[in-house]
């Protein structure tokens, strides 16, 4: 079992979702995040002073998958989330010991 985590631009969420559906991944968990990196945020003005927001809105996606699917899933996400501009984000893959489906108590691959 693997956990693939992706930090992407928010407006790419829909395309990533579709790409994952297309390769048979029907579940994921999404949350909000802020990214700090090469990409700079927008500028805000307040009482004549100018600020650059250095945290940029991002979306985090977590997908639990079978170990064998790891590369396919990572590639699908990268392909769908890419705009080619700075700040497109990162995707990484980590080992997972066990997964349980809360509803049934099923473990491992059956839990996905």
């Amino acid at each position, binding site marked *: 079992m693997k956990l693939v985590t992706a930090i992407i631009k*928010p*407006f*790419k*969420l*829909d*395309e990533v*979702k579709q790409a994952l559906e297309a390769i048979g991944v029907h579940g994921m968990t*999404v*949350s*909000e995040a802020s990214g700090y990196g090469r990409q700079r945020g927008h500028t805000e003005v307040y009482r004549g002073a100018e600020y650059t927001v250095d945290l940029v*809105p991002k*979306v985090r996606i977590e997908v639990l998958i079978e170990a064998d699917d790891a590369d396919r899933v990572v590639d699908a996400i990268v392909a769908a989330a890419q705009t080619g501009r700075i700040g497109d984000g990162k995707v990484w893959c980590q080992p997972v010991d066990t997964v349980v489906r809360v509803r049934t108590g099923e473990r491992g691959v059956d839990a996905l």
Partner: protein
Amino acid sequence: MDVSEINTGDTAWVLAASAMVLLMTPGLAFFYGGMTRSKSTLNMMMMSFVTIGIVSVLWVFYGFSLAFGVGDSGWFGSFDLSGLGSSVNSLTFNGTPYPIPLLSFAAFQLMFAVITPALISGAIADRARFVSWCVFVGVWVSIVYFPVAHWVFDFGNADGKGAGWLAAAGVEDFAGGTAVHINAGAAGLALAIVLGRRVGFRRDPMRPHNLSLVLVGAGLLWFGWFGFNAGSALGANGLAALAFMNTQVATAGAVGGWLLVERVRDKHATSLGAASGAVAGLVAITPACAFVAPWAAVVIGFLAGAVCAMAVGLKYKLNYDDSLDVVGVHLVGGLVGCLAIGFFGTKAVNAAGKDGVFYKGGLELLGIQAKGAFSVLAFSFVVTLIIGFAIEKTMGFRISRDAELEGIDVSEHAESAYELDGVTGSGFGGGLAMVTGKMTRNDSVEGTA
């Protein structure tokens, strides 16, 4: 009376006051709406907005007539003003003639008929079927509010007959302590009993989701209440000025009373307390505003603030879920105000009034006031209980447990109040919402752009 006798100043004030009172109902919607949890704020506000709609329409067809139509009864009016089809030139008569257009009087009184049932809605937050609420409002105003308004506010026809029985009995209620607040408070208690407690009552804090909105509501209520109280003079005169001043200073006193209780009891004075205290003061001074001196108004307000601050805890003790404290604020505050007149009332400020206990008037006025207050309380409570159970047994009044847990905004209105956050509010809605087949009905969501 000739049309040339219209007094433009009186009319100007009654028109302005009517608009101010209308604004109170949206104000109430925000006051209540901010106090609910975020998953049920829209339903709370919708209950107020739809009440404006329903009551206004009924008012045209028979409401105004039932309350103020020319008849012989002390219990209700008649149907002779149905349709409000009068020409623009009719003037007003209510006990004495008023040099203002009849339609301005009808509009002013309409706003009272609107806000009264809206007040009730706070008692049943988060859990009432919207359709059942609409039916309830229509029935309730027809058999409770319109008659009670006649009892209290109708001072009789030109032939000297037809005054409401409480008005005739000399009950002093300048702007609706009985007909509006005690009435709504008692009905709120009845409905809270009919609908039962919310899931999680006495376990979850259920704290206000948006106190800014509560304060916006309180601010608009305070503003509008000047129309409510001072407008009840039906003219721009000294009585209106007295009512205005008393409204302000009683409310001030009540903010103080409530915050002091909080400070002593909880060690913190809260903004919810300030807002609630203001409303409690406004409620209590409503019947009294034209019968007492300003210093007495401060005292009445302070008392109302302090007493209501303590009364809102009752529901936990007695285990009824008056969710937003309609009983603790409107029923209790209304009683404080109505009975206080029996003590503080004085002819010194208003020759048309009576002297109360503190002005050597003895207990007479207090007795009359108690009769007025408890008559309305009992009638409203009993009839509302009957209406409520009738609706509960026939169409059902409460939403399902699951719907309540998920949130009534979504289950009854298919809406959620806020889309503020980065994911769902980012405007990349396409990424988050999937359109069902239904959408094809108007073709609206094939890719475009």
